[in-house]
């Protein structure tokens, strides 16, 4: 009895070793697993990646089917210049996926052939190809943006033409803008400088560009009143543009001799060190008027509060919605969002800027119509036509 139990235990151990060795062997030698793949993968889509500059190809395949005893890790994507090969492995995709984008040194207008291999086996899909990569000049995913841009430009050009022919366009008064001249006059009377902070945006940010146009007006008035304007800059490029703007304004005012480039200087490209430095200017140079116009972030309240403590009259404007309340709380006048963009047109009455502002207004009216139509069709007909119309691929 005792002997038979020992024999049974030895038999079980023997069978376990065989099974374990089999599993290890299957994992180690791919061909051993081929019989477990009941259906190989099949490439069903092979195409040039759309809306790109070329140099990439997409491969999609129907997943392989396999026995539940063997779950492959994934697929190896193989590529060759001819259907006969040789095939190089260019990528790995986990078993749950069946899409791969080939970016591996793909040359435009060259034939490629692909196949998909199952890891741990010698099973591959049939060879598919040829396929070529190519670049596209028009990104179809951005058609909506193109249409809107064309419509907007057409409206701006049309208004520009009318404005140049002498047609007068109405723009409603903007509170903070009317206070600019008074604020500059105050600084002149007090014999103190004016501080113009163009924010933390780059020179190409829309808010910074809008700030430059107001800076031009401020600098011109400053030159006329023979006052001093200080512009601390966050980026070197912003400093260069600001210097050009102020210089040009001083020349327009007929006082190029008064322009001093040292008043427009670079501080640092680091948010709070920049803030600390500007605070120092406000406390020590005691400007009578502070302009905070452009892109602002967490430093907005620190700056506005320090300026308030220093007793300056303050005019602020930004398109950062989160920062507007801080300016509203601590400044005398605040340009809210798009008022900052409108300010330059309002100040200059330049036909080009007026045309752009008017086109913006018309654009907004069109968008409101689209919005209302979208809500009505969604509510009444359950249609998502307008939502889909605005689907844009930004990549």
């Amino acid at each position, binding site marked *: 009895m005792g002997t038979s139990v020992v024999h049974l235990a030895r038999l079980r151990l023997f069978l376990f070793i065989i099974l374990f060795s089999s599993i290890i062997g299957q994992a180690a030698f791919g061909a051993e697993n081929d019989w477990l793949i009941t259906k190989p993968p099949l490439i069903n889509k092979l195409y040039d990646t759309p809306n790109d500059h070329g140099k990439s190809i997409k491969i999609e395949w129907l997943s392989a089917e396999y026995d539940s005893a063997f779950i492959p890790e994934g697929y190896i994507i193989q590529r060759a210049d001819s259907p006969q090969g040789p095939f190089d492995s260019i990528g790995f995709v986990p078993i749950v996926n069946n899409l791969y984008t080939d970016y591996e040194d793909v040359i435009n207008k060259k034939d490629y052939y692909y196949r998909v291999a199952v890891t741990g086996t010698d099973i591959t899909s049939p060879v598919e190809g040829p396929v070529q990569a190519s670049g596209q000049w028009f990104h179809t995913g951005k058609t909506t943006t193109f249409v809107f841009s064309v419509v907007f430009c057409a409206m701006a050009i049309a208004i520009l033409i009318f404005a140049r022919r002498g047609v007068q366009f109405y723009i409603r008064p903007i509170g903070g803008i009317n206070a600019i001249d008074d604020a500059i006059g105050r600084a002149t009377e007090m014999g103190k400088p004016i501080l113009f902070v163009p924010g933390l945006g780059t020179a190409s940010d829309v808010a910074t560009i809008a700030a430059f146009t107001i800076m031009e007006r401020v600098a011109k008035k400053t030159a006329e009143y023979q006052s001093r304007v200080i512009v601390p800059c966050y980026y070197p490029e912003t400093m*260069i543009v600001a210097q050009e703007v102020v210089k040009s304004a001083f020349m327009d005012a007929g006082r190029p001799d008064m322009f001093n480039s040292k008043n427009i200087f670079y501080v640092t490209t680091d948010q709070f060190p920049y803030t600390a430095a500007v605070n120092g200017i406000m406390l020590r140079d005691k400007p009578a008027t502070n302009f905070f116009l452009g892109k602002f972030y967490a430093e907005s309240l620190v700056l506005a509060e320090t300026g308030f403590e220093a007793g300056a009259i303050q005019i602020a404007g930004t398109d950062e919605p989160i920062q507007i309340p801080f300016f509203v709380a601590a400044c005398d006048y605040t340009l809210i969002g798009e008022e900052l963009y409108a300010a330059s047109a309002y100040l200059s009455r330049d036909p080009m800027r007026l045309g752009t502002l008017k086109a913006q207004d018309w654009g907004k009216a069109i968008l409101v119509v689209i919005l209302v139509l979208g*809500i009505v069709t969604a509510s009444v007909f359950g249609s998502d036509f307008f939502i889909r119309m605005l689907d844009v691929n930004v990549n």
Partner: protein
Amino acid sequence: MGTAELLWNGLAALLTLFIFSFLYRDNVFYKFAERLVAGVSAGYWTILLYHTSFTDKVIVPIFEQQHYWYIIPSILGIMMWTRFSRKWAWLSRISLAFYIGIATGVALPIAMYASIYRQLQASMVSISLDWAGINSALVTIGLLCSLAYFYFSKEHDGWFGGISRVGIYTLMIGFGAGFGLTVMGRISLLIDRVLFLKDYVLTLFGA
């Protein structure tokens, strides 16, 4: 806490107190801390830009990888330096125009996507006759009235003035909520700093 860490944390605590001293008035300690942080930051960015811009985008591509087309943007960069010459300063405007034009062009589709299309899509909600529908209707009315406030081509009086007034009230409600949220965040930062000072003092006295 080791001696080195104790010293560095001590310096941080001291600079924190220097900055806080501004709450009393502008003073020599605040001035020291302010100039230290601005100077260190300017120096740090100079070295960082030297490595990330000049080394990585000029030296390596041109001289090591022989990507000679990088010479074109490098020339544009060199043209920025002509500002030091009165005679040739105008050349820097070409680089600037190129930079601003390209940056704006690249940003335009993304800005339109994020600020217009996505906002419009999110606002095109189905308005039903339940509480959720009433909520959506209120949001839609607030949105349309706010847009009316930013319409510059018509005087804000009469019925249109009324609509734009509702718009500015809506905006102010939004600003108030944003203000409260941000102030709470700032208070958290202050608490964090005060806790840092407290921990440092406790460590210093072996508590």
